[in-house]
């Protein structure tokens, strides 16, 4: 029953959304170049099915790699910021400043510095764009940890790292996973930015671009939907991890 609901509800939501979209286009009688409708997409998918698989895979693995990096580095930065007030005061403005810079404008700089390293550049951008939410959430989790929790292990002479591992990290896991859900979507954006701005002919971004030059609007929308689908796929992967590691945190709503 509950499992059924878990599958049915998202499906119904997606179907409702597609129906609303179709209706919107239909009612306004918008041409394809303004907004393609869901019914235009299956032919586009079918025609380029192999490309979608290949490009989708390209995009996916780079995104996941970048995201993995973001988790590791973001957690480290978050730890530094959470443990040290000075680090927090000093790093936050730099990180915020860095993150306020549109990454699209950084792509050319990066591709000039690491010329031809397409894979590296793409992974790097996915990482750069997605580590911040994770760092923030880990940092906040640490700096707002109630002393009672910390003292459980502190009274045993445990190191800061141990306290982080056994108490602070598990306690902030719900927020960490929330940040991860945000980061997943950002990482996709990062990968695609490179694929679009510094084209190297691989990934869904490249497919989007070729749809654009051909004026093939259904293809463009199909790519966007494919990206959304990949994002949702990765989201469910995160969700599974969340259920395993932070399932305890969800409370009944009475």
């Amino acid at each position, binding site marked *: 029953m509950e499992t059924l609901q878990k599958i049915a509800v998202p499906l119904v939501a997606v179907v409702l959304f597609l129906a609303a979209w179709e209706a919107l286009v239909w009612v306004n009688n918008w041409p394809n*170049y303004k907004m393609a409708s869901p019914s235009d997409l299956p032919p586009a998918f079918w025609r380029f099915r192999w*490309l979608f698989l290949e490009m989708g895979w390209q995009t996916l693995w780079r995104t996941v790699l970048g995201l993995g990096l973001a988790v590791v580095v973001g957690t480290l930065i978050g730890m530094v910021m959470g443990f040290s007030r000075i680090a927090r005061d000093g790093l936050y403005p730099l990180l915020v400043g860095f993150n306020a810079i549109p990454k699209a404008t950084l792509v050319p700089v990066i591709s000039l510095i690491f*010329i031809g390293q397409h894979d590296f550049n793409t992974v790097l951008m996915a990482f750069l764009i997605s580590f911040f939410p994770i760092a923030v959430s880990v940092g906040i989790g640490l700096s707002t940890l109630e002393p009672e929790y910390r003292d459980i292990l502190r009274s045993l002479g445990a190191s800061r790292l141990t306290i982080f591992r056994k108490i602070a990290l598990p306690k902030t896991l719900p927020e960490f996973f929330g940040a991860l859900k945000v980061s997943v979507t950002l990482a996709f954006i990062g990968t695609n930015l490179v694929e679009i*701005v510094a084209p190297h002919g691989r990934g869904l971004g490249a497919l989007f671009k*070729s749809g654009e*030059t051909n*004026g*093939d609007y259904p*293809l463009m929308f199909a790519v966007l939907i494919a990206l959304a689908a990949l994002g949702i796929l990765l989201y469910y992967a995160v969700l599974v991890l969340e259920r395993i590691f932070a399932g305890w945190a969800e409370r009944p709503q009475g």
Partner: protein
Amino acid sequence: ETAMPFALDWKFEGPAAPYFVALDKGYFAAEGLSVEITEGAGSLDAIPKVATGAFPVGFADINSLMKFLDQNPGAPVVAAMMVYDKPPFAVVGRKSLGVSAPADLAGKVLGAPPPDGAWAQFPIFAAENGIDMAALTVEPVGFPVREPMLAEGKVAAVTGFSFTSSLNVKRLGVPEDDISVILMADHGVALYGNAVIVNTDFAAANPEAVTGFLRAVAKGWKDTVADPDTAIASLMSRNPAADPALETERLALSIRDNVMTDWVMANGMGNIDPARMEKAIEQTKSVYTFTNAPDAALYFNPAWLPTDGSLTMQ
């Protein structure tokens, strides 16, 4: 074998086909060159790629190069071979909205994206054709909406590249005979267009390689003119999602309007007319304030052009 990665200014579209022809037919290899062709995101992306030496050769708009060299004097980059004898800068209008010649623009609404390359030259075009800028309404439009706005009749004309905007408008359902493409180069604008640019450090060390490269490019263009379909086939193998009919048309337009001009047919491809270049610089002064004294020799160097007649297009 010398490695010569080649940085295109744009994606793998019709006008990029000749380079793939040269590659596929082994013209580069015959010159002892191993060439890898890379997509670009505009001239402004290709120029620094060559200037930093990351790519020894590239393809970019000479007007952008002029500004780049003015802002970054001494950067080791220069144009070596003119390809678009006439630049694709154009005003694309709709006859049904009353735009078929430059003079018709008066009193009309012109859609122009502020950073557009064609829009940047529009003041020259207006001055040469006696169009009163005050008499026309300029609507700043984003690139994505430029052609759709023309198709929907919200603007009477737009600035853009001839082989991009006209095809886009056609794709949006505007009948071909309703579209008027006013090439600025046909109406008093003396500017040159895209050229093969080289890194001067590389060229100084490998002058023969550069000459060989330019020779192969010329051959590629010649073959493409003779057999566009094979050329498009070469392109399609690199960009499988492209639409061959569209790219064939785009290629044909660029050959007709930009590359195989009367001057090129008469004088061969690749070189420039110094007098026209001087005029182009003069015209540029009206839209761009040079920080250093402009000099044609800084921007174009014909030294590496092959002299064995391979540039003749007859």
